[in-house]
């Protein structure tokens, strides 16, 4: 394998996943939370692909493609929710959307 070892890819994936986690936990705009979720899913994809490369097996890549499809679905539903929230003139702030809180 030319270039860096799989370990380097995994460390980048871990850092990227933590960045995404920090975004989800810190930011209050549902749009940015969705974007951070995308970062987390992509970090997982990077780990899957580097393990696929390590074992010389395609299964990790197949799984990464399935993750991509799930991410696309998640974005469709998430953006639909955001548009619906905006249409009802509610605040676009995940802390103020607390109707369902017990």
């Amino acid at each position, binding site marked *: 394998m030319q270039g860096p070892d799989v370990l*380097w890819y995994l460390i980048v994936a871990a850092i990227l996943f933590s960045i995404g986690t920090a975004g989800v936990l810190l930011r*209050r705009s549902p749009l940015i939370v969705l*974007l951070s979720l995308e970062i987390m899913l992509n970090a997982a994809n990077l780990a899957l692909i580097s393990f696929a490369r390590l074992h010389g097996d395609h299964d990790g890549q197949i799984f990464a493609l399935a993750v991509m499809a799930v991410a696309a679905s998640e974005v469709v539903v998430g953006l639909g929710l*955001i548009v619906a929230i905006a249409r009802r003139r509610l605040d676009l702030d995940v802390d103020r959307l607390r109707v369902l809180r017990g």
Partner: protein
Amino acid sequence: MGDFLVWVIWFLAAGGCLASGIAVITFTNPFYSALALIGNLGSLAVLFLLASAEFLAAAQVLVYAGAVMVMFLFVIAYLGDRSEGVRLSGGPSWVRIGAVVAATALLVEVVVVIGMAAGDRLSDPADIQRSFGSPEEIGRLFLTDHLLAFEITSIVLLIAAVGGVVLGSRSRAEDELEEAEAARAGA
């Protein structure tokens, strides 16, 4: 020489990926965040290519940087200034500190576990053929070994499309809201 070039490209891609990831969560304007995420996905596609996932790199650029991000930008444009001005982060400061600590703890845990469990086994990747990760190989696997996953993916996408239409269409509550506003404006 070729190996050195691969290292340089790898570091550029990894650095761009992490920098644009941090940019996504620090920009206050969601439009800039979405643009930074496109950079992030592009650099990730380069990393995918270096890990011999050619088809996935192409799919990443087409599906994510193309379709998904265009949808994001459309929604941000639709929301207009409503999408801006949301507080950067909410809650008292200990919530913010806790969030950063939680994310850092996650990072440390993952790195330690990788180091402990894998160790030096990560340094000798399997020998692969030139066709590894090509559309041909992926397509063959999707239609043979992973047919069920392929079909389930199509159903998931169909359900998501229906859900998007349902969520995006007008509801009776909104009609009543608009009627009430129109009545108030008339009176």
